[in-house]
């Protein structure tokens, strides 16, 4: 069984194609670099989209790859945001130090709370994540002397990046900083999802009973991915604090968790890019419609969700994928 396969092996090529960076992906990141120069006036908004996209990526690790539904993911975003904010407000102003500490704090919180998720069914889990999120919001609200409560954390002053680049009003430094951090984390998550670990994770999402019977230590993997996703969410939160120099209590709100879920669904789960695409679509439409009337936005979003759950599974990227498959089939037919 172990002798090497000598002839050109289809199956290996198949796996390699799955793992290789595709042209569309390279275009995606090049386009994001281009934004820096093409839209110099919208960089503040663009960095917020990117931060939200990174946050959505961390949710995709849980929802898309591990199959965990959570309504409280903002908890880790908020922990990261407050950690970075408090550090900067108390004199530790180096942004990279802030990122690392914020990621670590969120990671510890994620690690600890992951043990609460190992019991009960889907609904119980959902409620526990929801409860943790709401609980943290209340904590931040009550501890106003530390967090600033509903008024938000004031006096966040962030130092120069690498001691060289100051954060400017137009968001030039901020955008470049967010883009580099996002790309590095994305590349890491991407390779992880294609690794043996990622394969085990997907198999767990597909069928927990079988995954256990194949020898995967399910609870350990759950703890692991939950911690990692919390770290990335925490870093995203820290990025928001550092680029806006402010922490509002809404970083911990239920609305943020729910919106995030919606963005990821709009973009498409388990695609890695769904979070970024969904965040961009969501935030740009929201920006337009909310200016008109915030109720229109909510109504529209609700209808969109209902229609999507009933008719359009897979989100924008899933739809594009199906379209591409359709075109390919048509082309194949013409050829034959």
């Amino acid at each position, binding site marked *: 069984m*172990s002798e*090497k396969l000598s002839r050109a092996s289809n199956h290996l090529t198949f796996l*390699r194609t799955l*793992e290789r960076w595709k042209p569309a992906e390279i275009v995606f990141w090049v386009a994001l670099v281009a934004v820096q120069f093409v839209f110099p006036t919208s960089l503040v908004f663009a960095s917020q989209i990117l931060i939200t996209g990174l946050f959505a990526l961390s949710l995709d690790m849980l929802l898309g790859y591990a199959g965990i539904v959570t309504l409280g993911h903002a908890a880790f975003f908020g922990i990261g945001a407050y950690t970075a904010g408090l550090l900067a407000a108390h004199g530790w102003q180096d942004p990279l130090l802030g990122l690392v500490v914020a990621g670590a704090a969120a990671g510890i919180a994620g690690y600890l709370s992951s043990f609460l998720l190992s019991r009960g069914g889907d609904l119980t889990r959902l409620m526990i994540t929801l409860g943790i999120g709401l609980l943290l919001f209340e904590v931040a609200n009550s501890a106003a002397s530390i967090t600033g409560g509903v008024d938000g954390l004031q006096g966040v002053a962030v130092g120069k990046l690498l001691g060289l680049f100051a954060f400017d009003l137009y968001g030039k430094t901020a955008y470049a900083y967010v883009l580099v951090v996002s790309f590095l984390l994305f590349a890491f998550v991407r390779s992880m999802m294609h*690794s*043996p670990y990622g394969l085990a994770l*997907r198999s767990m999402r597909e069928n927990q009973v079988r995954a256990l019977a194949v*020898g995967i230590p399910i609870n350990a993997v759950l703890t692991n991915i939950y911690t990692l996703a919390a770290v990335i969410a925490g870093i995203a939160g820290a990025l928001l604090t550092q680029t806006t120099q402010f922490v509002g209590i809404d970083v911990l709100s239920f609305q943020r968790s729910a919106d995030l879920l919606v963005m990821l669904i709009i973009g498409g789960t388990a695609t890695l890019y769904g979070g970024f695409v969904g965040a961009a679509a969501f935030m740009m439409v929201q920006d337009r419609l909310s200016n008109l009337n915030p109720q229109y936005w909510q109504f529209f979003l609700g209808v969109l969700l209902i229609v999507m759950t009933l008719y359009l599974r897979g989100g924008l990227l899933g739809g594009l994928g199906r379209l591409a498959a359709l075109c390919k089939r048509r082309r194949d037919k013409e050829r034959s």
Partner: protein
Amino acid sequence: MNPILQTRDLWKAFGGLIVTKNVNLSLARGARHALIGPNGAGKTTLINQLTGVLRPSSGQVFLDGEDITRIPPNARVHRGLSRTFQINTLFPRLTPLEAVTNSILVRERKGLNIIKRRVFGVSRRVNHVDEAYHLLEQLNLAKDCLVETHTLAYGKQRLLEMALALAAKPKVLLLDEPAAGVPEGESDELFAVLNSLPKEISILLIEHDMNLVFNFADRITVLVNGEELVTGTPTEIAEDPRVREVYLGKGH
């Protein structure tokens, strides 16, 4: 030689309902051992205790002489105890190649360092992917190994059930009604695969199809109401009056 898999006074009760009653099962090395019994005899409950999904109320399970009663299911797989499921329990949106490679990589987990496990792509594990492909080839699944599992025909999915279990290189294989639901015409393929399994793998087979049981097994245990009624060779079982009563006497 000591048996490869053994239970000692295994007992399981849900509240007042006793589903496993003092079972002392012993699976010899290289055996083709069948476990039969009427519906509700507690066969699947027994399998679940062997694999660790259920914890017995009392008694012990030994694998190759080691007491594994308190070891979780995933660790039992690493010690060489694999199973298949009566109802297809597969990964619908993974391809068979990915699914079997996954089983192999889980088996080889200890041999991979953290970078190989977490960062490098699956395709770099050339030997393991090839091994998966060969296994699929042996089970006549090579042609279908690159499409998602949920698109496969039912019979092919039954074969994949076996492939996932075999990929763990088990010492003991528990087959829970491998032919369940497979139409007559397609079952030959499955039986051929069963018969070609190497002797190093000891097999415990749960099956309703008596033809298959008497052709395949060299030893048979009859389970009734959670209790071992009798164990013996196929001829002994076929002639045992108590077995006849269980199967024929009550209008079966």
